């Protein structure tokens, strides 16, 4: 189900002297099945934006349509929306509260008023999707490692069978190992279920490898919305708003600045390696011809 945003604005403390414009006329289409990276530094409005998508926050002006319906209509079922647009907050392990992992994951589907059998089936599926082994199912969530807790929390949202999964900084505070595991798992999940994924992050390096589309936010507006390669071409502008392209992009820039005829639209190590090899092959051919 696509989500369409039409000139959505959000102003904190409207009508007061301290009014802050967190979102400024955002228009956006999130079609089915995309893997999107939403990037911006702290305070750019990205967290505010995603809370609008599942109706936790209400736009000050503008409209949001889910499946063609305005989510602010009085007869719109917010609970249904929250189950269809699953939002995993930053440090989601802080929301765990049950005595064992399995019951905690059951919390979401239970709130949807499903049958006991369906609830348990969904919880089981969700835990499998995040790659948690059976041996942990009946342990206290508080005895797990940081990465495992986070998986449980993500499963807690997945168990509602959302069509769109939004993850706000899913790797914050994890070490590189935990980070790679979580991101790989999300990619796998995306491929297996075809779910739409919106990954909120301030790390370009994380995102470049995984997503099909990058939305860059700054001061409540969308600055760029394109495929990663195109977005990273603007690395200079990105720097001015406190973001950066992946390091390889800078390496290629360094080479270009010193007379290497290589592409600047490179975002992964694989691509860089290929480009440099190609460059030297071409060079050899040229030199031989001469």
């Amino acid at each position, binding site marked *: 189900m696509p989500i369409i945003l039409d000139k959505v604005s959000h102003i904190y403390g409207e009508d007061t002297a301290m009014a802050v414009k967190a979102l400024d006329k955002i228009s956006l289409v999130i079609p089915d099945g995309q893997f999107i990276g939403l990037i911006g*530094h*702290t305070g750019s409005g990205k967290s505010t934006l995603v809370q609008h998508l599942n109706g936790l926050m209400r736009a000050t002006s503008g409209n949001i349509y889910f499946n063609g319906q305005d989510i602010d209509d009085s007869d719109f079922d917010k609970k249904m929306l929250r189950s269809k647009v699953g939002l995993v907050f930053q440090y989601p392990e802080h929301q765990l509260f049950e005595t064992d992992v399995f019951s905690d994951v059951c919390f979401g589907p239970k709130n949807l008023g499903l049958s006991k059998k369906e609830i348990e089936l969904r919880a089981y599926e969700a835990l499998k999707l995040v790659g948690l082994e059976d041996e942990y199912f009946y342990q206290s969530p508080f005895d797990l490692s940081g990465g495992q807790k986070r998986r449980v929390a993500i499963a807690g949202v997945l168990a509602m069978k959302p069509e769109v999964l939004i993850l706000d900084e899913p790797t914050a505070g994890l070490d*590189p190992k935990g980070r790679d595991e979580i991101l790989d798992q999300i990619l796998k999940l995306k491929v297996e279920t075809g779910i739409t994924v919106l990954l909120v992050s*301030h790390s370009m390096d994380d995102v470049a490898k995984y997503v099909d589309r990058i939305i860059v936010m700054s001061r409540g507006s969308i600055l760029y919305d394109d495929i990663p390669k195109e977005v990273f071409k603007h690395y200079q502008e990105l720097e001015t708003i406190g973001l950066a392209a992946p*390091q390889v992009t800078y*390496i290629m820039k360094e080479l270009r600045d010193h007379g290497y005829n290589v592409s600047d639209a490179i975002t992964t190590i694989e691509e860089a390696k290929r480009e*440099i090899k190609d460059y030297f092959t071409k060079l050899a051919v040229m030199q031989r011809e001469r």
Partner: protein
Amino acid sequence: MSLIKVRDLIYEYIRRDEEGNVEGITTAVDDVNLDIKQGDFVAILGHNGSGKSTLAKHLNAILYPTEGTVWVDGKDTKDETYVWDIRQTAGMVFQNPDNQIIGQVVEEDVGFGPENMGVPTQEIWERVEESLKAVGMYSFRKFSPNKLSGGQKQRVSIAGVIAMHPKCIVLDEPTAMLDPMGRKEVIRAVRALNDVEQITVILITHYMEEVIYADRVYVMDKGKVTLQGTPREVFSEVERLKELRLDVPQVTLLAHELAKEGFPMPKGVLTKQEFREALDRYRTERADKYANYFG
């Protein structure tokens, strides 16, 4: 003489189940030896659960060795009479910026350490001013910590430690909860302290790009130091680091990948300039070769 000397350090803790019965013993730090000189910038790397934070807490007498000895400025941390001296000599900054700021105003928080040490009022003010200036937070001295960004809060925490005039500052993953801008701010402040004030820095982190400025890097895994050396030496071991599931800077990784393809790339490339220079040499070498061959 070493400022910090760690010999055969072992730290074990006993795991208990809900009834309090012993379930097992975990060795968090396993036979670690360290020698850190005054003025050094040392980085300790490792992923969560590698024992690096447990090791750090020994340097500040928050934890005591199960076996082995830790000396800070020549004082054995196990000797209770030295506890406050040691905590003053080796200040500590923790991961969560919110959970270590005590004062409700920035300057009051920085003054907290000196207050505890019994420093006279006039001197507290001098120390607070100089510490806040050292981390570039002086203009925020009247702010409530709640109004600061994560990076700014961590800089206030660092100022709070410097105000105690330590010889050494131990930072336990100070950037783990920050965004990239905050991380840069904090690392810049830490490097300045080391360069300008000659304060010994022990930086515990899992971010690789933060350790390339260190004089010495220790990599921990399962409680042991598995790799150590200069950043260049450590980053030469790309395969080993990958095994440990640690990040390697992209430039190092790219050089390593090219070397595998037969490019004459040196080991442990740390900057894009080094990378480009290595390629330059290769390009010239090849051009010369062709020139000789065909010319």
